[in-house]
């Protein structure tokens, strides 16, 4: 150990220096305070012995300067003094001294003190090293999280979370708190939103979130509906997550064309549908979280709610109701409800909830383990061409083909053929840019055939308030018996100069409508006069196609759809 000894009396200095050297330490000698400070700066000693009374600069002042120079480093400073008044000794310690040694020096006590401070110095050094180590580790972890976050963003991207009818709050690092929020446009219009909350924090939660993002965006783009996406997420998480880890979640499928919402809540706090008229409908958790049940026991049964443009859907993770205020109390689900109940007409629930949270926690920044998302119902817009560029393989692939696909019996209840049929059509070079329109055509034909053909449901029910839920109850009930029924799609595609023609015939085994042959004009009048759902569905088809024919008893519908490359010039120039 290097010991700095400052003592103005040459004889005292000599005695003390010898004592310290005999203990095995190196001694640096100073004659007064100023020299002590200079030598301290130059030699960086490990311990300082300082006479309290010295010429030029006394020990008190030297102690202050030395402690300032030492900074974070622990350099024990022992005053050497012949003073014995309690006040004088206390002043030594106030000036930054750690201890004092009263003259005349006692060898045994000097040795014991030097050793004690040496131990303390070692301890301090170990603590500082560990602190620096933790600091470096933490910095490294934050850097890694930022990098991981970028990787995650590339998979999860923000989807359509920035759409004007979606408001959300999610911390940039929320994925490391186990929260995930995804939103995607469905090919035929409509929006799919998933809010999830993994048990646990950090890396395990983030790793679990990756496949959920891939499944969600991958399947949504292919036209799968919420139940299929949920089943797949559950299957995947059940397989990859260790027992005891799972993901609470709320899935919403908003259909702006038919003004309905399909919702599923497994383990998240109540979601809310806030109708523009002031009604509130709770969306409570009715299912086990994702990743708990084996696939064959998993229930993806959705609750169907009717909704109108302007209605809001609110969903949140438990970080919101559970966020503590300074007194440790949380807002609770009752607190959330009171905010929603107190909304002024036209006031957005998102703003009101955030404002209440800031009031509650007293902090402008929200904690990073809460996620809030509000989705507003809007008027359906005509499906837009997907912004995808034409893939490089645009000129290769099947363009001239015909296929028949028939679903029978129980499969009608269990299987949604739309993603598969869409997939077949999307193989046609260039048609991918029209996936939204093609999906709409296929789904209108399919839903019409299933609900009004096979299941013989009356669309008039859906127009009355009570009839809406009756319609969906009856739909579920009748799907239980599809014996002897079928839906047959005949798809045909032919290339044309600058595009192609897709012909779809959809037949079903139902009794059909109570008409024999409807021309386009009759269809239009019928739709306008009664506003019936079937009429509306067929009206959408009529507007999008070159030709629409309803044959037989109304259970055979044929459409002819012409399409063009988005930019024919690029194709012909390629």
């Amino acid at each position, binding site marked *: 150990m290097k010991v700095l000894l400052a003592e103005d009396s040459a004889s005292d200095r000599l005695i003390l220096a010898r004592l310290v050297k005999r203990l095995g330490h190196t001694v640096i000698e100073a004659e007064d305070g100023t020299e002590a400070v200079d030598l301290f700066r130059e030699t960086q000693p490990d311990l300082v012995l300082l006479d309290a009374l010295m010429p030029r600069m006394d020990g008190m002042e030297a102690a202050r300067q030395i402690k300032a120079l030492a900074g974070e480093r622990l350099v024990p400073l022992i005053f050497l003094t012949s003073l014995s008044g309690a006040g004088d000794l206390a002043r030594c310690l106030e000036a930054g001294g750690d201890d004092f040694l009263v003259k005349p020096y006692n060898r045994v006590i000097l040795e014991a003190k030097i050793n004690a401070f040496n131990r303390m110095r070692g301890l301090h050094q170990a603590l500082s090293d560990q602190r620096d180590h933790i600091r470096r580790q933490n910095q490294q972890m934050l850097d890694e999280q930022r990098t991981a976050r970028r990787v995650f963003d590339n998979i999860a991207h923000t989807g359509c979370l920035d759409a004007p009818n979606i408001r959300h709050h999610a911390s940039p690092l929320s994925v490391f708190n186990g929260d995930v929020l995804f939103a995607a446009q469905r090919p035929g219009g409509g929006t799919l939103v998933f809010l999830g*909350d993994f*048990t*646990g924090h950090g890396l395990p939660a983030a790793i679990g979130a990756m496949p959920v993002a891939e499944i969600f965006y991958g399947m949504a783009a292919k036209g799968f509906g919420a139940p299929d996406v949920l089943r797949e997420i559950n299957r995947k998480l059940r397989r990859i997550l260790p*027992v*005891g*880890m*799972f993901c*609470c979640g709320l899935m919403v499928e908003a259909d702006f064309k038919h003004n309905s919402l399909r919702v599923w809540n*497994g*383990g*998240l*706090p109540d979601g809310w549908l806030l109708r523009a008229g002031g009604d509130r409908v709770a969306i*409570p*958790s*009715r*299912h*086990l*979280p994702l990743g*708990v049940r084996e696939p064959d026991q998993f229930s993806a049964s959705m609750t169907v709610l009717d909704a109108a443009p302007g209605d809001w859907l609110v969903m949140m993770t438990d970080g919101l109701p559970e966020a503590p205020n300074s007194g440790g109390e949380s807002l609770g689900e009752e607190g959330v409800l009171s905010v929603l109940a107190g909304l002024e007409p036209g006031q957005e629930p998102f703003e009101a909830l955030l404002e209440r949270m800031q009031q509650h926690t007293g902090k402008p920044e929200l904690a990073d383990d809460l996620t809030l998302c509000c989705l507003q119902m809007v008027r359906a817009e005509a499906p837009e061409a997907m912004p995808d560029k034409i893939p490089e393989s645009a000129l290769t692939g099947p363009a001239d083909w015909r296929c028949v696909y028939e679903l029978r019996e129980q499969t009608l209840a269990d299987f949604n053929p739309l993603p598969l049929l869409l997939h077949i059509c999307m193989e046609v070079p260039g048609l991918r840019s029209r996936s939204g329109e093609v999906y709409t055509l296929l789904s209108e034909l399919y839903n019409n055939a299933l609900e009004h053909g096979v299941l013989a449901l009356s669309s008039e029910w859906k127009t009355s308030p009570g009839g809406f839920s009756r319609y969906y109850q009856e739909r579920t009930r009748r799907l239980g018996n599809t014996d002897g029924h079928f839906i047959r799609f005949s798809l045909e595609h032919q290339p044309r100069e600058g595009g192609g023609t897709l012909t779809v015939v959809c037949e079903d085994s139902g009794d059909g409508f109570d008409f024999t042959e409807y021309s386009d004009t009759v269809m239009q009048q019928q739709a306008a006069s009664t506003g019936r759902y079937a009429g509306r569905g067929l009206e959408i088809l009529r507007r999008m196609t070159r030709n629409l024919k309803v044959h037989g008893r109304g259970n055979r519908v044929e459409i002819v759809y012409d399409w063009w490359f988005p930019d024919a010039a690029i194709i012909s120039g390629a």
Partner: protein
Amino acid sequence: MPIETRRSDDGKTLTICVEGRFDFSTHQSFRDAYEHSEPTVSHYVIDLSDTTYLDSSALGMLLLLRDHAGGDGARISIENCNSDVRRILSISNFEQLFSIR
């Protein structure tokens, strides 16, 4: 000790009592409570009379116990929950997996 266990006289029922907060801090002792139990145990009772709080990691621990006790064939009852604890169990629909009394 926040976790206490007792065995019924016939050795078939293991009761695990959790005192105070049932969260990640009890992870190891909760595991120890059932992992070292006798093979004769066929029925588990989780007594939450003295549990003030339960979080999602406790839900995970209950699933681990369920897995240990035979998954779908496990016989586990969760008893004497206070209303907060009960609410958390029912939000996650754990009554589908455990008998909650």
